[in-house]
């Protein structure tokens, strides 16, 4: 690990102001992703701003009847919150499908949304990777590469990595909104749908956050009911990232919303696919995965996603 200086922020505004003053500074929350990457020198900040203990760890009801989740709320606490379990079960299901009990006790709401890809070539400093070293090439697209885990849609010739978060997929299907504070002290709101960006020819740019912008909370709109589920398909029964995941909210009349994880560089949802839900899984996937460009290794994900959705829809009818 490269040496770095460290400080604790005293408030969200103080954290954002400090981040803008110090070159190459990063926020640290749970640290479960950032430290992992710092040990491999994939991330090498010269300064860490610890945002624990500045009052961002509460879950409050909003005036509209939704929930405002502080950026530092731990994944365990969010999953276990009685209001989340009752009114937003897709979120609890997605959270407990991710990582392990130990990691969820540390992982935070903002850190989880902003965790970086688990592409094995991104993690291997000896291999070219456009996300890690812009312009160096993409090892996953090289002859003979193993791309089984990687994305089938939303990709580019520069990068085919997936976004690894389970929680983010549930946040997308719930129409969650991210709240931030900028170094200037201004605040803004960003729908989760607009937080992550596709790789294009700049795969190292992953979000619409501006330099030093601190996530302070994630807001959920009022509950919309329906049968909510999160189906995660992976190589092991537990403690593995998704090959494909389906977050679904299905209403009694068959209408609803669905989002996919494990298939794209961001959590994946399309309005026209949601509209096709009453017609069944095949019709939904025709729209949701239209224009997919899988590799030979990961083409299986197209059928897997359709079958996972079919199972979800069958269960919702029970």
């Amino acid at each position, binding site marked *: 690990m490269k040496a770095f200086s*460290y400080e604790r922020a005293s408030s969200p505004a103080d954290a954002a102001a400090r981040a803008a003053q110090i070159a190459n500074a990063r926020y640290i929350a749970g640290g479960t992703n950032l430290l992992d990457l710092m040990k491999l020198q994939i991330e090498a900040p010269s300064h860490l701003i610890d945002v624990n203990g500045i009052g961002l760890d509460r879950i409050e009801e909003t005036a509209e009847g939704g929930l405002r989740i502080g950026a530092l709320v731990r994944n365990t606490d969010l999953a276990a919150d009685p209001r989340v379990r009752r009114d937003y079960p897709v979120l609890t299901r997605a959270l*407990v499908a991710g990582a392990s009990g130990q990691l969820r006790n540390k992982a935070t709401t903002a850190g989880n949304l902003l965790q970086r890809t688990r592409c094995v070539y991104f993690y291997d400093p000896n291999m070219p990777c456009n996300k890690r070293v812009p312009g160096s090439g993409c090892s996953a697209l090289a002859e003979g590469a193993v791309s089984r885990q990687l994305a089938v849609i939303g990709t580019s010739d520069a990068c085919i990595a997936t976004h690894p978060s389970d929680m983010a997929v549930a946040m997308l299907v719930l129409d969650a909104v991210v709240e931030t504070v900028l170094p200037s002290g201004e605040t803004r709101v960003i729908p989760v749908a607009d937080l992550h960006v596709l790789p294009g020819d700049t795969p190292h740019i992953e979000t619409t956050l501006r330099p030093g912008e601190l996530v302070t909370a994630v807001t959920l709109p009022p509950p919309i009911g329906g049968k909510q589920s999160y189906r995660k398909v992976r190589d092991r029964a537990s403690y593995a990232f998704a090959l494909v995941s389906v977050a679904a909210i299905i209403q009694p009349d068959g209408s609803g919303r669905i989002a996919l994880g494990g298939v794209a560089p961001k959590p994946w949802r399309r309005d026209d696919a949601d509209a096709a839900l009453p017609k069944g899984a095949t019709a939904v996937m025709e729209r949701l995965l239209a224009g997919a460009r899988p590799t030979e290794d990961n083409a299986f994900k197209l059928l897997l996603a359709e079958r996972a959705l079919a199972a979800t829809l069958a269960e919702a009818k029970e």
Partner: protein
Amino acid sequence: MERVPTPQTASPPATGAAATSPVRLTINGMDQALTLDNRVSLLDLLREHLHLTGTKKGCDHGQCGACTVIVNGRRINSCLTLAVMHDGDEVTTIEGIGTPDHLDPMQAAFVAHDGYQCGYCTPGQICSARAVLEEIAAGIPSHVTGDLNAPPPLSAEEIRERMSGNLCRCGAYANMLEAILEVADTQGLPA
């Protein structure tokens, strides 16, 4: 407290700010005041600086659970957190849970059921196993919990899922499961 230097040679960060920080924490009931290189993980603080070698380093990347300790009452992977982030915190390691003369009930059950082979993963497994029973008692749901609005049951399935962050190369899992179920039973947790 004697300070053991970290293996890496420290180059000061570009900002010119300090690469070390003072930290006070309570480890197994003992107060510790140290000045540490910011890079020292909680795991390396325990093992290299305080010589509490019960906590094991397996992967150093959050993938094996061998480094599991209890911080402020919750289990975490000590390899993926910085010691300097724990100012004021209370840490319990396997050394603070029981001693060879006074085994904690979970340790005794692991012995009785032969829940370890080489023993490398055992300290982390025992820290996790105790936390798992507390998490079930506190009503925290898991991936296999059926009804999210009811307390999770104390079943073998729940324990297996909740222990899945602790990997064992020797495959002592079946015996560990029996040990944990026995402790749960003596604590009168509902099945």
